[in-house]
């Protein structure tokens, strides 16, 4: 079957060994094509779980790049290694009793204060997060900013692997988001309000009307409804 598709093969280097793989593959599919059986360093294949962090270099620049194996397309002569896990301290804390003060990290992740502001973390982040900026937000006690800036983190661990100050940025950010959710962010009242409206029978009449409509009318209403996004 493969021959019939006339796939162009390009050379890449996995763990320094040359392999010919189909052009347009991701790192993960290229590794599988090359015969690797991936049991670790592989997960959702959709760019969300952060399990397939990889380091690579290209011929075109001097940089050590970070990327997700399932999202990064291979290029000719790319050198690749997977970094499925970075050993990282994980603080044990009780969110019910922890004090969301500015110095919360002195007890949990004191390494945070070792930050040299070199921004090496942001250079390697596959999610293009301003990692150093959120570490600095933590140092100055701004949990809201830290939670906001780190929101897209998938905890792949590359920042911690590269940090000259040996910080575990992503675990500290997780704590910041937890504290932000629990103590800083305003509690939404939408759910409570809506439940009360339902219990008070606010929607009874509309619901009865809908149940008695013929199918065509329901379909029409469905497509005419107010949207805050586009159906593509």
């Amino acid at each position, binding site marked *: 079957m493969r021959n019939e598709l006339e796939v162009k093969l390009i050379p890449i280097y996995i763990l320094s060994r040359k392999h010919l793989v189909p052009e347009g593959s991701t790192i993960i599919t290229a590794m599988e094509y090359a015969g690797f059986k991936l049991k670790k360093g592989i997960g959702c294949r959709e760019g969300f779980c952060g399990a397939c962090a990889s380091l690579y270099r290209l011929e075109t620049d001097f940089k050590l790049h970070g990327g997700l194996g399932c999202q990064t397309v291979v290029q000719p002569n790319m050198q690749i290694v997977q970094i499925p896990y970075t050993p990282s301290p994980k603080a044990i804390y009780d969110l019910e009793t922890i004090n969301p003060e*500015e*110095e919360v990290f002195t007890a949990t992740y004191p390494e945070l204060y070792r*930050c*040299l*502001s*070199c*921004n090496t973390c*942001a*250079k390697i982040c596959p999610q293009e997060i301003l990692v*150093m*900026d959120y570490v*600095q937000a933590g*140092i*100055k*006690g*701004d949990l809201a900013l830290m939670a906001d800036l780190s929101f897209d983190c998938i905890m792949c661990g590359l920042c911690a692997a590269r940090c*000259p100050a040996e910080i575990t940025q992503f675990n500290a950010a997780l704590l910041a988001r937890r504290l932000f959710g629990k103590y800083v962010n305003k509690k939404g009242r939408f759910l409570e309000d809506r439940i009360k409206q339902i219990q008070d029978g606010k929607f009874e009449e509309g619901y009865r009307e809908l149940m008695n409509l013929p199918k065509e009318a329901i379909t029409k209403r469905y497509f005419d409804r107010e949207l805050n996004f586009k159906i593509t």
Partner: protein
Amino acid sequence: MKRIPYYPGCSLQTKAKHFETTAMAVAEALDYEMITLPRWNCCGAVHSLTSDDLMHHIAPVTTLLRSKEFSEANQLDDSRLVVLCAMCLNVLKRTNKRVIELIDDRTKMNDFLYLESSKYDGSTQVIHFLELLKEIGWDVLSRKVTHPLSNLSVSPYYGCLLLRPKEVGIDDPEAPVIQENLLHSLQAKVVENPLKNRCCGSYHTLADKQVVVDLSYDILTNAQKAGAEIITTSCPLCAFNLDQRQEDIIKKYSGFKKIPVVYFTELMMIAFGLPLKNAGLDQHYVDPRPLFIEKEMYHEE
């Protein structure tokens, strides 16, 4: 209202928050809006003296670069960068000097900072808030005074990093007068402390606080002997060592009498008749309020 960029530094947004709020209020009264840099990082706190380790200069260079970009993008009236903390001032100015003088270092650091949107050329001029006040003019300040401090004997304390090394200091390292001139404009009685530029012990406060206890004892008692009722400072670490460590000074030196230590901006708030609710007068180990009440400068709300 003139707009000028402001770099807080870590202490000014945590332990020394009221130094920032009072400085901003005082600046506003003098028609200056201090605009906090939107993206700033810790300056490193201590200037690295190694000549071959540029990594420790990256933090201040990033801050200086972002200040330049911020003031250009927002067309601020004044592009200089104001700081309040003596340590930040010292680190930022010394690093800037290096960037200007050592072209190889500048190139290397700019190459390293390739994620930034422009290169840094050393053009950010860093000034201390006291220098800004001096420039606004002591006569302008004195006209703002509604509650003269004429009944208060104040001893200004400088410490090290506002004055040394000379190339980055804001005044004569041996005989500074900038705080004295400020206090005169508030009509305070200025008391000369011979140890006003002696080191407070700085970070020894963490490793061996007895070092700081002894140094602070000397500084405080010399001010008291000269007749001081209160001491002003401009550095959050000096403020901590001179104020908080009095708790331990008392244990070691019987007969020591506590003396309040405040930021100069807190006295300006009083002299200018600004609201004292958020002036942080309650943020001190030695509460200055009884003294202010005794001098009829402050009333409990």
